[in-house]
């Protein structure tokens, strides 16, 4: 690893001091750091995750405790973000709301990754009839309105985090599948795949051991764009009242409740909305930064 100083007693081969290996990740991180917006986004996201974790154990007040302060109390020292229509502390609820947002974002990304990547790999690698069927399914899913899926699931399964994640995943996994399919189609033609087949590698090994790592850059980038879409959709569903059931605090629900008093105390709706916007922006900047960082044409 880092060979800053090589003691004279230690022998090393070659004239060049072992230069640090520039792996894909290292290289990507180095270029991500150069992008100031992306870097700021990374810091914000780290802060967000930290907030979510802290809120599990500690919030200034109990987030669902009614009467922590006066109804519609303005921001003050004790309640920096004021209180909502039931006298619950907005800051505490905002903190807990982070959990829902991140859970939805990451949960969706996970499902989209596992489904989209697998289907895309299989379709692109096997081609022919299998590809035709998977592509047809993708196109059918593109034709189904996302809101409809959410409403049907809401009625059939009932409200809850799980319902939301499934509903959102079902409406956005196709982009990932298409991307991976396209990547696979091009990677499978490369000679090292041929070489792997000639050396007797199993199909699963070729797909997940050779094709997948080569498509990882675009996949990660796509996944970071899935997260903000999922968070926004979840907030939107909550806003419509088919999201996370009350009293669980989530940003969409908070904005919806705050709407009743938008003329009197606008911050009740604005604060969660602002947190939402900032989060979306951060994920998008981060995704953009990642895309640039993993784009080989940007390599210097």
């Amino acid at each position, binding site marked *: 690893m880092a060979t800053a100083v090589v003691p004279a007693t230690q022998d090393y*081969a070659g004239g060049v001091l072992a230069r640090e290996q520039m792996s894909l990740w290292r290289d990507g991180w180095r270029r991500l750091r150069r992008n100031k917006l992306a870097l700021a986004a990374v810091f914000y996201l780290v802060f967000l995750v930290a907030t979510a974790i802290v809120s599990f154990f500690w919030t200034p007040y109990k987030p669902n405790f009614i009467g922590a302060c006066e109804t519609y109390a303005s921001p003050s020292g004790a309640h920096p973000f004021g209180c909502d229509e039931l006298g619950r502390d907005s800051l505490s609820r905002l903190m807990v709301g982070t959990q829902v947002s991140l859970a939805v974002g990451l949960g969706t990304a996970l499902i989209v990754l596992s489904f989209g990547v697998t289907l895309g790999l299989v379709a692109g690698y096997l081609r022919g009839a299998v590809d035709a069927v998977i592509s047809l399914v993708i196109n059918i899913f593109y034709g189904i309105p996302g809101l409809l899926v959410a409403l049907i699931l809401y009625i059939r399964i009932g409200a809850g985090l799980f319902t939301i994640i499934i509903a959102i995943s079902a409406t956005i996994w196709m982009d990932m599948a298409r991307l991976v399919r396209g990547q696979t189609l091009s990677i499978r033609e490369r*000679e*090292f795949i041929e*070489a792997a*087949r000639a*050396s007797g*590698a*199993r199909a699963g090994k070729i797909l997940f051991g050779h094709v997948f*790592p080569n498509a990882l850059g675009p996949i990660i980038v796509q996944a970071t764009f899935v997260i903000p879409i999922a968070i926004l959709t979840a907030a939107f569903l909550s806003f419509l009242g088919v999201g996370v059931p009350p009293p669980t605090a989530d940003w969409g629900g908070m904005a919806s409740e705050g709407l009743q008093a938008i003329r009197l105390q606008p911050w009740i709706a604005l604060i969660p909305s602002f947190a939402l916007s900032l989060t979306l922006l951060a994920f998008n900047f981060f995704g953009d930064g990642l895309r640039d960082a993993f784009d080989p044409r940007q390599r210097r």
Partner: protein
Amino acid sequence: MTTPVLQVNNLSTSFFTDDGEVKAVRNVSFELFAGETLGIVGESGCGKSVTVMSLLGLVQRPGRIVSGEVLFHDRDLVKLDHEHLRQIRGRDIAMIFQDPLSSLNPVLRVGYQIDEAMHAHDKVPREQVVARGLDLLRQVRVPDAARRVKDYPHQFSGGMRQRAMIAMGLSNRPEILIADEPTTALDVTVQAQILELLRDLNQETGTSIILITHNLGVVAGLCERVIVMYAGEIVEEGPVQRIFDSPQHPYTWSLLRSLPRINADRRERLRSIEGLPPDLIAPPPGCKFHPRCPFRIEKCFDVDPKLEIVGPGQQAACWVTMERAYAEMGARDIIDTRPGAASGIHPPGYKPLIAEGRLLEAPATEEGELVGGD
């Protein structure tokens, strides 16, 4: 003689494209003995690679083996199912490719890729894999192998990448190593090193080698026996010494003649074979080489010659053979090697091909009319 390790009988492979059936390999038969080094030579697109890909069932759609059998220890690889074929690939018959950079996965460490080749088969015990991977890299003379196993392919030079590929190919101690133009992408000094390495490995491990190349010098340096392919068919086969000293097929003769010679007159032009290999969708009738052959006779236009014994261990598919060409057509002193030039036989409406870098006027000729060398 002992029984061959690999026996190929009447193998034909075609690609079914929208334009028609491309008959890439037709009725190819040959055998490979244990410890033997066999060269397959020919121009680009004459079916060398497709032949060896067919051996391992690696031809992909729209390509398909149409007929024939590939007997490896009396098992027909053509009829084998996917899983059994997979077990033979890399384990019993390994393959290395032309471009060593694109044959290595760019995002995986070299050492890992070598180990993986062993993990695909359980020939090498799991606990020995890492140690053997390192040993192999040393064996193929990668300097500082212990550190190099952790490198990525782009950190390797071209020659080292090919060495790594060879290490990977040898990792399961295969009986046969197929090298598909292993030195084409490398510069000349590195080529020599790789060939020397292959020769040493052949002698040390007894692995049979099938070497595909369009470079006759490479064949001379490494192979004991040579197969010359043209338009998907074997046109000549024999011991390397015989092929070089006394080629019998005009195509082999032309290939050897077009080798640049270090002791040649400097003003002498590089010799080439006029024209291009034929379209394999609609190949010419008769002998596939007749449109380019200076020694063709009328029979060549419509009757396809079969391989016949022309010398000790040597076979050629030609109606004329060079022996006759020397005796009757003055092949030794021939300068004009345009199609039909030596025999003077052209089909009706014959148009000469490009010669001396310009297109010659096309005189309308009667069948069998003598045009002669101008």
